[in-house]
């Protein structure tokens, strides 16, 4: 069936079985492979994307439910050879990506968290960051450098900015 939604800012229509995993729509139909599949059961978070600004697992999302929604994937955060997002820059600086398979999901979960901080003006702490990425497993880093990266990105967002955002 035809499903229309906003994908990374552009109105998009796909023809997909209604209960197809949106993850497969992204990867197979649309060729957007930044979103990964680590488990297919909602546990690992490698397939994290944003729907209407909230982080969700694309492997649990039936295609039909993106109808009329706004979807953001990792591809929306930077252009090839263009500048990176603050979080991407920070993760690069702290060496937050080892094998990199969890990284797309981490970036999306981290982005949702940072936007939320900005909206509320809250300060992140180790605990709240750990909670924010608890749905994203990483087998390589032990999480420290990812948390450092999120902290670094948060420190760059000024409170003034958040007041007007």
């Amino acid at each position, binding site marked *: 069936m035809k499903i229309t939604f906003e994908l990374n800012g552009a109105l998009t229509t796909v023809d997909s079985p*209604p209960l197809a995993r949106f993850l497969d729509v992204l990867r197979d139909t649309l060729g957007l492979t930044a979103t990964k599949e680590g488990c297919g059961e909602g*546990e690992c978070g490698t397939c994290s994307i944003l729907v209407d600004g909230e982080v969700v697992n694309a492997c649990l999302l*039936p295609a*039909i439910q993106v*109808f009329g929604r706004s979807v953001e994937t990792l591809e929306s955060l930077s252009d090839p050879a263009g500048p990176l997002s603050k979080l991407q820059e920070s993760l690069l600086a702290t060496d937050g990506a080892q094998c990199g398979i969890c990284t797309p999901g981490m970036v999306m979960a981290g982005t949702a968290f940072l936007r939320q901080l900005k909206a509320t003006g809250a300060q992140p702490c180790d605990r709240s960051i750990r909670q924010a990425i*608890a749905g994203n497993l990483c087998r390589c880093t032990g999480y420290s450098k990812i948390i450092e990266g999120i902290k670094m990105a948060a420190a760059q967002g000024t409170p003034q900015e958040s007041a007007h955002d």
Partner: protein
Amino acid sequence: MTDPRKIEVFSPETLSAAVQVLAEVGSEAHILAGGTDLMVALEKGFWQPKGFVLNISRIEPELRYIRMEDGDVCMGALTTFADIARSDLLNTEAPSLVAAAREIGAQQIQNRATIGGNIMNASPAGDSMPPLLALDARVVLKSNEGPRTLPLFSFYPAYRETVSQPSELLTEVRIARRDSPTQDYFRKVAPRRAQAISKVILAARAWNVEETEEGPRIGSIRLGVGSVAPTPLRLFETERLLEKAVLTPSLMGAAGHMLETEISPIDDMRSTAEYRRQVCRRLLDDFLSNLLLES
């Protein structure tokens, strides 16, 4: 075999349209809310839908809310755990439910998982049911013939079964506003701190705990447990022992003993029956001893 993902999906825009469909062909309908249970079941082949799927996610305007109504706190069936986690109203009225919501899955799951789906999925390990039982929650089921409201404790006749009929949709969960002081408790015991299936859950609420000469006296009490029986369970007998009674060490012992007779935990790959039984009892002890301290 046809591809289940290609099954027909009907996505009504209004509650009345959904209920109408259920009235006509309810026995062939599979209701889809946030999909966090169903999509896993589909992927693993546990769920092979026949007939059609009724996707209720577009009725959000009618079914996603947390509000006061007639002295009750009401939650629409499509209320997500993220909604619950950030609700000030629930934080005041139902702190144990808020605590449960914050421990469900992780952010990605909380953003999608609905309270209606949790209740209807009827897993004995579902995290929202023990607090809802402790909060004396009632659920509202709607069919073509109108709504019926029933207490959650009467909702689960057997393992993964509910008394809901194919023509009915769960639309709302209601909790009476608290009219006197309470002490609330929620504790989920799980193998890790997020993305974890519960091994034991205890939620409790005590009303009107007063200090007496012999010790604190509980006005009334509700106890809900999870993962220790085939269904989410309210511990009626244990409550009866404790209600209006003065908490003494011997009463606590008797209550613990009663709890053990009410639950029926099993050994599985996640835990042992013995652990679940003893820890469930210890959680009750923990709740009761804190009453001793606080009052």
